[in-house]
């Protein structure tokens, strides 16, 4: 038995020395905090390293958790770049003065709708909020034309949505801005009264649509493409809502990035931003994740409606911060989260 005890002690010493030896915290390399999944951006970041010879260290987590980490670390953070899943988290960092202003020529690559008004962050990819539906159950002609119509009693119990997903919250914020607080509240109340089913995230919502638990749902457009990659026979398709004249349009949110103040590698960081907005990286996102490229002149996948032909919700993503807070409160007040 003492043998076991000795083995355990040896284990500790081993783990301890691994800790010391293996990981002196790298002052080397560009440190990137990524709120985006390694599966999505990992290959591209590896390619950046190979193409430029710049060493990078990537820390992957959830966007909200990466943001919380950056806030706790404060000025002593080692991070140079924050790669965010959505505009809201970047907005909070910008508001707190934690992001540097990006070079104008970089900003100019992206449509004004999809970057910070003062140039503190820039969108890299776009994602449309769509209505996904089960193609075994519904024909596209039966799918509502407007996201607002899913509260119609005929969809009672047949709609799924992720009330706590950051993109859904941004969508509610856009409704508030576009139609006012009361209309947004009525929509949420309608979802509740209509027994719309709540899911933890876009992916689980889409799974529920695919297995027929619900018939349609409000999700980001590109999850469909991920689902079809994993399971080619999944009976799901996307419908882009609000496209008729006079309707609200489709809400487009962005993933984006910003450079942290206090970085000691601003040149490398600039190169990184430039790389992600470059034609090659933009084509990578289009082909791998089916997101909308943000660089002007790089086309989306041909099966998606082109961004410049899509009626999009007219909202300033850069000033969405306070609206997000109000949207979260509204979702809570109605009792959806």
């Amino acid at each position, binding site marked *: *038995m003492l043998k*076991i*005890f000795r083995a*355990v*002690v040896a*284990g*500790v010493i*081993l*783990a*301890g020395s691994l*800790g010391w030896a*293996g*990981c*002196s*915290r*790298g002052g080397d390399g560009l*440190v990137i905090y990524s709120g985006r*999944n390694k*599966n*999505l951006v990992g290959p591209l970041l590896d390619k950046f390293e190979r193409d430029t010879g710049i060493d990078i*260290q*990537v*820390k*992957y*987590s*959830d966007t*909200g*958790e990466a*943001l*919380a*980490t950056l806030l*706790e*670390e404060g000025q*002593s953070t*080692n991070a140079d770049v924050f790669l965010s899943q959505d505009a*809201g988290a970047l907005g909070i960092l910008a508001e707190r003065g934690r992001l540097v202003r990006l070079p104008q020529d970089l900003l100019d690559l992206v449509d004004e709708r999809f970057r910070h008004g003062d140039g503190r962050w820039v969108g890299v990819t776009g994602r449309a909020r769509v209505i996904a539906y089960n193609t075994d159950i519904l024909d596209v002609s039966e799918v509502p034309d407007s996201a607002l119509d899913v509260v119609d009693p005929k969809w009672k119990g047949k709609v799924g949505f992720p009330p*706590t*997903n*950051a993109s859904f919250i941004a969508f509610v914020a856009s409704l508030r801005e576009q139609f006012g607080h009361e209309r947004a509240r009525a929509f949420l109340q309608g979802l509740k009264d209509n027994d719309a089913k709540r*899911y*933890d995230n876009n*992916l*689980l919502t*889409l*799974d*529920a649509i695919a*297995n*027929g*638990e619900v018939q349609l749902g409000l999700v980001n457009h590109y*999850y469909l493409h*991920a689902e079809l*990659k*994993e*399971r*080619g026979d999944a009976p799901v398709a996307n419908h882009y809502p609000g496209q008729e004249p006079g309707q609200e349009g489709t809400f487009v949110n962005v993933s984006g990035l910003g450079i942290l103040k206090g970085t000691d590698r601003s040149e490398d960081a600039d190169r990184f931003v430039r790389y992600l907005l470059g034609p090659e990286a933009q084509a990578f996102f289009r082909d791998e994740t089916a997101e909308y490229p943000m660089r002007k002149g790089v086309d989306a996948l041909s099966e998606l409606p082109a961004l410049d032909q899509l009626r999009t919700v007219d909202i300033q993503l850069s000033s969405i911060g306070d609206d*997000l*807070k109000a949207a*979260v409160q509204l979702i*809570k007040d109605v009792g959806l*989260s």
Partner: protein
Amino acid sequence: MASRRPALHRGPRAPLVLRLAGLGVAAATVLPIAHLAVRAGEAEDAGSLVVSPRVLRFVWATVGLGLTVTLLSLVIGVGVAWLLDRTDIPGRRMLAVGAVLPLVVPTYVGALALLAAFGPGGLAFELRGIVGFWGATAALTLSTFPYVLLPVRSALATADPALEEAAQALGDGRRTAFRRAVLPQVRPAAAAGALLVFLYVLSDFGAVSIMRYDTLTRGIFLEYRSAFNRSSAAVLGVLLVVLTLLALAGERRARGRMVARSAASSAGRASSVTLGPWRWPAFTAVIALVSAGTGLPVGVLTYWALRGASRADGDALVGAVGTSTGLSLGAAAAAVMIAVPVSVLVVRHRSRFSRIIETLATAGYALPGLVVALALVFFASQYLSPLYQTFMIVVVAYVVRFFPEALGAVQSSLVRIDPVLEEAGRSLGRSRLDLARTVTVPLLRGGLVAGAALVFLTAMKELPATLLLLPAGSDTLATLVWTGAADGRYAQAAPPALLVVAISALVLWPLDRVRDRRPRQ
């Protein structure tokens, strides 16, 4: 009830080294709590938030889930322990390992598997109402009842069968003898296990998020993840701490003052109950439990691995096996080594000081991993920057989170060792340290092994703290599972999840043999 209470060493005579160990452990738990308090203080609307109907609903839901899961775990844990240790149930050895395995299934994997099998459009059949309270209850009970089973088995193995036999000789039926002679002896172990279950439920995010059941911890994660509001998150965190302290006070009461103590070496092997016609039904029931807790997740994972198009990266898996095992071993060893002096302090030097240390050391268990991780992020990045983002800090996080598992196991071994043994040694002129090495620690080994194993198994599946604290560029098996599952690539997520289960089973197998050998010595 208090008649068997042993003479206690009271007062401030605890050696300095013990008090320092206790203070160190308490400080490690106070750190995240203090951090929560500071962040909560930054909330503009803390007062109105605490009394809002939504938050009260969270509190109510959390308490309801915690009590239900604890109750079910107690029934299942004590029942299965009795079947395994006191009856002639067939396949005991296999069942004994199998019944602990659910412990190693991450709760979000267990919950996903339940949904995949019994959810709407599931692989098996649809159970109505599985989403929500009952689903969360099932997922959590299946993965936490071993916290009761393990200590109760170890208490049964060392319980003095003479008492039971005496009760029967005095005319009690088997059932009455069990209630009067056996239950009191396993009560402290069962209460300690139940406390771990309750606190685990408070801290769990995996099962409640998949089952969409709103608890305080889910609320905390959502504040960080979707509302980006850390001060509201902290207000909910403070409420969670309050709940935890109430639970600790409750357990103290339930555990009572009774401490069963009998020198393990004097105990013969208890006679075994003949189940007769109930042998196979009992066997089937335990098998069903093991199937639901482990077989189902493993089956669903295997199905996903085969069905999906994505693939796990072999090199990454190999690296992650090393990292996961090294970190978990480190945490297990550190936790039991710290648990020894703290247990001695708590068991042998009862005082207000030692009670406070015990309470604080246990409270860390109820804190969600994210809360512990962010406190360490803050503290280490500001004041310990050479340690920040090293494996060391991950081990620290595991020890803060899982220390009570080690403490409970070591403590319950220690209370069964009569201090007379050490006093005799001291009167023979042996030094304290020498006695600790030659007498106390060898007698404690059952508890040390059990405690280390529990910490190891829990650390293997830890995700939230690992994700934030792991050095950039490294992965554990749990983070690989997360990377795949968060992206819908279940076939990629399945192999690392299966490896967590397989490695843990390898650890449990010898553990059970060690345990079984003890009473025969």
